[in-house]
């Protein structure tokens, strides 16, 4: 019997596909998410929109929050550690969190290196803006990738940019003759074996979710149609006027992302979406997507 193999770690992400993972900050919110059909929840002290508003240093949540949320629901519970903060990750692993997000939403703890994720039994998800970044994270042991988008904005434009970039780089790679693959790997600063594997598969070697700015059922369906395997919704649910209804609608829109009639039906009467932020109003050094190396 073997625990913590890469197949077991990447396997949980496979099971989350076609589903919606929702940010929650209390056991009550976690229950609302589960009731709405979330396939997992992300346990946080604050949602990204509030982290952005508060400023300062954002850290791993208090273990009590993670634990109470784990006790409240039967679905998988994820939690965030700071980039490079392997001790926060060890704490979350000890608590029994089902997935760790080494996340740019929190303030990075290391300005050069990410966590050696191979070293853990618990699987990790990491953000990526392009293929090179995704494959570097997988090389470090990430068992799941997500777009970075721009968290806490309710603006899907950056997530769209990131999935389009990854998909177009994969299409380009697939058309390269073998002798050009090594130079391609060097240019995107990615491990060559993973570049070969991606070329062979025609997709990333692990599941790739959308995250960072998804606020409506239509946003979720858009990301699915662009090639994402599932959806993270951060501030988009509990910063909207009717979280339960919106959560349920985003779940349906993710499953029926190719069915415009269903999308029209579930998009009706959801009340106000979260307040949005235009990306150009955020100073470049305050953009969370720029964190990670």
């Amino acid at each position, binding site marked *: *019997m*073997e*625990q*913590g*193999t890469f*197949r*077991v770690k990447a*396997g*949980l992400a*496979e*099971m*989350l*596909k*076609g*589903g919606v993972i929702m940010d929650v900050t209390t056991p009550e919110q976690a229950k609302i998410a*589960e009731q709405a*059909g*979330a*396939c*997992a929840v992300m346990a946080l002290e604050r949602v990204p929109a509030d982290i952005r508003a508060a400023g300062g240093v954002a850290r791993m949540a208090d273990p009590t929050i993670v634990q109470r949320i784990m006790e409240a629901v*039967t*679905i*998988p519970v994820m939690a965030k550690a700071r980039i490079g903060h392997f001790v926060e990750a060890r704490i979350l*692993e000890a608590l*029994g969190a*089902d*997935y760790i997000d080494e996340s740019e939403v929190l303030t990075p703890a290391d300005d050069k290196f990410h966590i050696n994720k191979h070293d853990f*039994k*618990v*699987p990790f998800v990491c953000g990526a803006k392009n293929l090179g970044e995704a494959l570097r994270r997988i090389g470090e042991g990430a068992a799941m990738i997500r777009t970075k988008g721009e968290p806490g904005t309710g603006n899907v434009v950056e997530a769209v940019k990131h999935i389009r970039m990854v998909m177009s780089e994969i299409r380009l790679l697939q058309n390269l003759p073998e002798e050009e693959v090594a130079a391609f790997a060097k240019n995107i600063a990615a491990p060559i074996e993973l570049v070969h594997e991606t070329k062979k598969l025609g997709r990333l070697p692990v599941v790739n979710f959308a995250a960072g700015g998804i606020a409506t059922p239509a946003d979720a369906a858009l990301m699915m149609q662009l090639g994402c395997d599932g959806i993270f919704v951060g501030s988009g649910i509990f910063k909207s006027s009717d979280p339960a209804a919106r959560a349920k609608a985003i*779940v*349906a829109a*993710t*499953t*029926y992302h190719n*069915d415009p009639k269903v999308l029209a039906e579930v998009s009706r009467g959801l009340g106000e979406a979260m307040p949005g932020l235009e990306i150009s109003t955020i100073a470049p050094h305050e953009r969370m997507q720029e964190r990670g190396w």
Partner: protein
Amino acid sequence: MKIGVLALQGAFREHRWMLERCGAEAVEVRKPEDLDDLAGLVIPGGESTTIGKLLVEWGLMDKIRERAAAGMAVYGTCAGMILLAREIVGSDQPRLGLMDVTVRRNAFGRQRESFEADLNVPEFGAEPVRAVFIRAPFIELAGPDVKVLAAVGDHIVIARQGNLLATAFHPELTDDDRIHRYFIKMIQGKA
């Protein structure tokens, strides 16, 4: 032979590939009408509470029960096993309830306790099955009509009852297609 894969949430893509590899025509099922001409249906791994809610909400629950009663074979993996079970320990979540078994969810523990192991399944020959268990359930109690094909200790992890088959683990995450071939033989009346 046309076999459906329930595609509401979870690892349905891998089951489709596996069935195609075994020579079956595999189609994704999201609406009641997709069930009409299927010889069999696979319910994949995923989140059983999510899939159960979508089954009710989109009118698939009763239709699957009807079609299974009329002879359509159903194979559930992991979440699919939970959805097939009549009883789920400590839960009133929506389910098909077709199989006379009691399952326990997350029975081996959380993700860090998830594991892979070699499983002896006499039905499939001497070569063990590499079984991948992810926050997996197991069957605690099985009725008299249920045939147990494999267990880990006392915990039943492969079971069959007539046209119903359930595994607690994920053959679709490996290259071993013996369980999918067995399911196809069940449909053909050869197993």
